[in-house]
């Protein structure tokens, strides 16, 4: 049984189709990235999974249960929306104590102290949340979401509105939590760098459909043709190197950038032949590395295709 299962999910609002036959699964303990442009239907999917909206068609399950009708199953799930779910007029500790009461957390005082220390807010425990910065609120929101040790936690744009330092802090926190608490993380984001760093699996949603669903490693290595970056010892050899490479039948394309050649290969096993051809032309090579495409490139390609109606 998967932690999250979505099968043939569709949903429309006011005659406009937001989700069309969406299917994917998330395994236990995975950090799953759900990517898509604004308005793609990411938050709608999360809301349907959490039982806040009904599916138009299809079926969703979290931990094998329907959260819309199952209070006990909801106790095993955590969620962080954009607003953090915190009351500004209450202190950090009181906010956590409230949710501890709702979720029936055992020994709440100890758990609250542990989490406040983890998110580095122990010294602000009695301060009203309204006095906190956006980053501090987000950290407290994450602590609130995992307060009851959920098996699955849904994080909806956890880094939005944060400065780069705070984004990194949130990213590190998510990674630490997934390791320490062994929870499944469902990360809804369009911070592609963040997703590439922390997620094991991703799904790209665009135009209401899933355009790609695979591990990050598979997506970034298997998409498109293999590519190799060759760093030249002498940048002055660039023109000659381009000419040499351009004559090779197994090279599909070559771009030069400073002292480096970016070659796209027609044959994945042709890297040694490429190196031999350059050495044979008396071109000194400093470094050769297989280059993979970034998640951002793959994302933009899928979203671009969806927007182009492909």
């Amino acid at each position, binding site marked *: 049984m998967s932690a999250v299962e979505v099968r043939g999910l569709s949903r429309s*609002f006011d005659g406009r189709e937001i989700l069309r036959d969406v299917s994917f699964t998330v395994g236990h303990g995975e950090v799953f990235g759900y990517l898509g442009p604004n308005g793609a239907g990411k938050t709608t999917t999360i*809301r349907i999974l*959490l*039982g*806040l*909206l*009904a599916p138009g068609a299809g079926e969703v399950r979290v931990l094998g249960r329907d*959260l*819309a009708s199952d*209070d*006990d199953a*909801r*106790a095993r*799930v955590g*969620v962080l*929306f*954009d*607003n*953090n*779910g*915190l*009351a500004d*007029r*209450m202190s950090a500790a*009181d906010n956590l104590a*409230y*949710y501890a*009461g*709702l*979720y*029936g957390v055992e020994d709440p005082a100890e758990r609250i102290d542990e989490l406040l220390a983890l998110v580095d807010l122990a010294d602000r425990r009695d301060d009203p949340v309204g006095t906190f910065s956006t980053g501090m609120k987000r950290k407290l929101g994450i602590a609130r979401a995992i307060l009851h040790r959920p098996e699955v936690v849904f994080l909806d744009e956890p880094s939005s509105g944060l400065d780069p330092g705070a984004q990194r802090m949130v990213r590190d926190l998510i990674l630490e939590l997934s390791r320490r608490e062994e929870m499944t993380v469902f990360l809804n984001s369009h911070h592609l760098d963040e997703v590439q760093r922390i997620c094991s699996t991703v799904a790209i949603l665009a135009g209401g459909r899933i355009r790609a669903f695979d591990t990050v490693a598979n997506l970034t290595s298997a998409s498109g043709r293999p590519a190799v970056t060759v760093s030249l010892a002498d940048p002055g050899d660039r023109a000659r190197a381009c000419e040499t490479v351009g004559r090779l039948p197994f090279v599909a394309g070559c771009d030069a950038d400073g002292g480096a050649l970016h070659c796209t290969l027609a044959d994945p096993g042709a890297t040694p032949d490429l190196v031999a051809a350059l050495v044979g032309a008396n071109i000194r090579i400093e470094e050769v590395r297989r280059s993979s495409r970034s998640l951002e490139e793959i994302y933009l390609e899928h979203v671009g295709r969806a927007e182009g109606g492909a």
Partner: protein
Amino acid sequence: MSTLSVIARREIRLALRNRGVLITAFVFAIWFPVMTAVGIAAAAGGDAAAVSGGIAAITLPVGVFMGYIFCSDAFLREKRDGTIETLLCAPVSLQRLWEGKALGVVVPAYLTTLLAAAVSIGAASALAEAPVAADPLLLLHLAAVVPVWIAAAAGLIGAAQLALGMRENQILGFAFIFGFIFLIGGLQAVISGGSGVSATAEAVLMAVGLALLALARFIAGKVTKERIVRTIP
């Protein structure tokens, strides 16, 4: 501790920390009774029963209005901020969430209504020179009828605020205030009649209050999470 009391205690705490709501409630609890006490005293003269009737008549709308004031913090603010969405994901039914919030509204609304009643009794007694505090029907009115009406108001207003969008809630707010002004006009007519508190009137008011409470519960049962989420601004 039950989830009902967890939710209610939090709403009471939040109400006590909302300076704007508290100031509005206290100003209303003092200003309105003093103003109406002048009318009550003038109409009743030295008739203590008539003064009791006047005070009983104003405490119901005051209680309902207090319920409205505190609902704006417990239900509407939570929806406007979007934090209601997180609460809806907790292992608590929507009905229980509504009950807890309504209870959290009733407590401060009832306490401020009692303050308004005390100010009314003091002011009217002084102006009419007719002490009314010992009237058992007035005490019954304050102890039983008023809290039931406040609970019904909190339940109905809360359910409406959860179900309606922000624009509809604005219209509801204006309608409520205009309705309240209209009610005051009607009450002044009742007060000037100089009638006292009667057991029959209290029984009818109690029955109506309980019916409204049942209606509130029925309406709240019809509100869905989807309806709430789709009307979050």
